[in-house]
């Protein structure tokens, strides 16, 4: 099963790379079904847009993972306990906001363009990670923690050697969800002045140009699927209980 997914990932990766390196082939292929409204050239190359998109996603996700991880851990400790209830509620509340709303609220305050988008995406990506870290750590069997404590492990040891490794599956799940959503959300950021593949989609919608829309959507979808599958593979490796 793992090997099957690995093969699929490899294939999709190759397709994605091909599209990025030789966008004209895809365009040509699509051009057989739809009429193109734009002359070739005079458009930002796909590669550049892809890079912009990746930049937004990578920066916001890394920040979210890093900060979210530690924030989540903090909430599970005795110091963080007073804040846990409120912050978890806040996180759940935040997740009911549609992506567009978060973008639309944060960006005008922080600033249009790349910086604002990254900040907004970071905030949105933070939530699933904090949530999953807290839930994952709290799900670790009490008996195991009891045994570890009884053996004389310090609190830090218990986290490092027992709680975090056992919560990893759930945490990775949170990272997976957060990043995949981030990739999709970044397409919207184009509507707020950031770059990325969303630019193609937005322009395509405005001009009814199917090719533009697809040229923007296909790489993004491929990216999302790739991320979903690859992190999913990491998760599968780590199942310890029957």
């Amino acid at each position, binding site marked *: 099963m793992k090997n099957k997914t690995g093969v699929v990932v490899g294939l999709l990766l190759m397709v994605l790379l091909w599209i990025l390196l030789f966008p004209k082939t895809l365009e040509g292929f699509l051009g057989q079904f*739809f009429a193109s409204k734009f002359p070739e050239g005079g458009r930002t190359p796909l590669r550049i847009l892809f890079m912009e998109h990746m930049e937004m996603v990578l920066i916001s996700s890394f920040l979210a993972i890093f900060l979210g991880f530690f924030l989540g851990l903090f909430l599970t400790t005795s110091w963080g306990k*007073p*804040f846990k*209830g*409120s912050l978890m*509620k*806040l996180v759940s*509340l935040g997740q*009911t*906001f*549609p*992506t*567009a*709303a978060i*973008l*639309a*609220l944060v*960006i*005008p*305050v922080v600033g249009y363009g790349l910086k604002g988008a990254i900040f907004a995406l970071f905030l949105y990506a933070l939530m699933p990670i904090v949530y999953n870290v807290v839930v994952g750590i709290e799900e670790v069997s009490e008996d195991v923690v009891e045994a570890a404590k009884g053996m004389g492990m310090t609190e830090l040891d218990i986290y490092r050697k027992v709680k975090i490794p056992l919560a990893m599956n759930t945490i990775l799940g949170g990272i997976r969800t957060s990043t*995949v959503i981030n*990739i*999709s*959300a970044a*397409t*919207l950021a184009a*509507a*707020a002045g950031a770059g990325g593949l*969303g630019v193609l*989609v*937005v322009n*395509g*919608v405005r001009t*009814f140009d*199917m090719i533009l*829309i*697809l040229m*923007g*959507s296909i790489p*993004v*979808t491929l990216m*999302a*699927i790739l991320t*979903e599958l690859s992190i999913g593979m990491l998760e599968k490796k780590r199942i310890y209980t029957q």
Partner: protein
Amino acid sequence: MMIFVMGFLLLAMLSVGFTKKKALFSGVFAPVLFLFLLYRISEKALVFGSQGSAIRVSFSLGFYGLLLMVYLLVGHALEKITRHQGLLYGVLLLLLLVGLFLLYREQFEAFSIMKEFQNKREQFFASLQTHLFLALFSVMLGTLLAVPLGYVAHSKKQLEGAVMVPLSILETIPSLSLFGILLVPLSRLGQLPFFRALGVSGIGWAPAVVALTLYSLLPIGRNTLVGFSSVDKSVVEAAEGMGMSRRQIFGKIELPLAIPIMLTGVRIALVQTLGGAVLAGLVGGGGLGTFVFLGLAEGSPDLVLLGVMPIVIMTLLLDASLKGLIEKLRRNGR
């Protein structure tokens, strides 16, 4: 200034309100304080506002932060106090009534958000209606389609992959893209007389409904699958042994046991769709998204809020009521 002071006060109360009495106290005190603050600000604003119709009084970030704190505080208090919950709910209801009354008496007229609201009053309610319609209709369609799909995926193991995988892939397509992809085919479809009569075209409600329906397929379908799979096989076996027919087993055993999980899927889909319907604003489908994107383009947070707040409130209400319904069903099923 006062806002910061208030903010600190509430923050202090938040971290301190842990015993039952304190929680009750702060849970009641905070919203009352907040409403009072609102009233005072509105008085001042009215004074400003009367000096000219172009003057706007907006809420600062701190104010919204304050609102958030109050929300958390009340939520926290509701958790802690187990016996006097009725009291707190009563107080909240009272405050709500007072607030609505003040609203009616145009106490808050001077706030910029109210001005926007007044300006676009009709459009607001129309958008609200459209938004609800889009969301509910799409989820309904989604349920009609996804439940049979989920059941098929459950009863025939081989088909499970064939059903679930395309749905999962759908989910990873960015919403904007899906809307966009549907544009051209739908506009072509809209050129056929039957569909044109319905109002199908590349823009408008059609791509929104189709896209939202497609998105809701996964949560509903997956939860249907999980719901039926979670029915204990030994229970089904016992029923067979008693001589129940396939249909009876389905109707009396499997379905009732699977419904809570299925409804959870519907709940998730509904929350997702209420949010996703915002994008309809980009393709001319109406809905509260129009306000959001208008606000984004004009740089007016008030417009954005006008669009977002109803969504959040509706989401919270629907989410909570569905959760309650599901809990009730679960308990009856024991």
